[in-house]
């Protein structure tokens, strides 16, 4: 399964990547599992599974850890928002 992953703000800077297309192994089918999958890359990526302040969106809608992730989805990770 292939998804597009976006990173914003301080997370984007820390990881040094704003967007990537990733092929996910079987079983990585929720936001929570995707966070664990990405954390396995180690280094700065480790925080993705443990940083409780980190927010996610699936197809441009706010999403919690249980939100399903499917083929072609756009999944974004970012720190708490600070606009306005």
């Amino acid at each position: 399964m292939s998804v597009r992953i976006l990173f914003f703000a301080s997370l984007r800077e820390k990881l040094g990547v704003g967007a990537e297309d990733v092929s996910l192994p079987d079983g990585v089918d929720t936001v929570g599992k995707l966070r664990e999958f990405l954390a396995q890359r180690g280094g700065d990526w480790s925080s993705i599974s443990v940083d409780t302040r980190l927010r996610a969106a699936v197809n441009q809608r706010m999403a919690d850890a249980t939100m399903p992730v499917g083929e072609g989805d756009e999944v974004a990770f970012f720190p708490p928002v600070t606009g306005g």
Partner: protein
Amino acid sequence: MGVRVQEEAFDVGRELAALTAGRVDVGAVASFVGLVRDRNDGQGISAMTLEHYPGMTQSALEDIVEQAKSRWDLLDVLVVHRYGRLVPGDSIVLVLVSSAHRGEAFSACEFVMDFLKTNAPFWKKEVTPDGARWVEARESDAAAVQRWDAS
């Protein structure tokens, strides 16, 4: 009703005039303008960059406006949010709410701002004398949203 995410400045007088032009059913317009301050968390700010999530910002703001319209009897709502580089004194965001009566307009305008602060994907990076820093989300903003659950 409208939501705009843009780099350019906005003209509050013009937007307000457009919201009420040709209408005779508007009794109240509540509005809010957020601006860049030259200080934040005890440090001087010389500029800031507002990053956003294109595509999601528009729909997130539209969703907040829809929630406001379902809670109160509103005539029209406009939200304009800027992104890009801004300096102290620049406007960041405009919310305009028109209604027949003032209570609804005030409540809805504050509701939109409270939810925008926690649900719209914008991030501020400030330039201080010590270098650039990402603005941290405030506990008070999370609390501001929660009080709407009770009402």
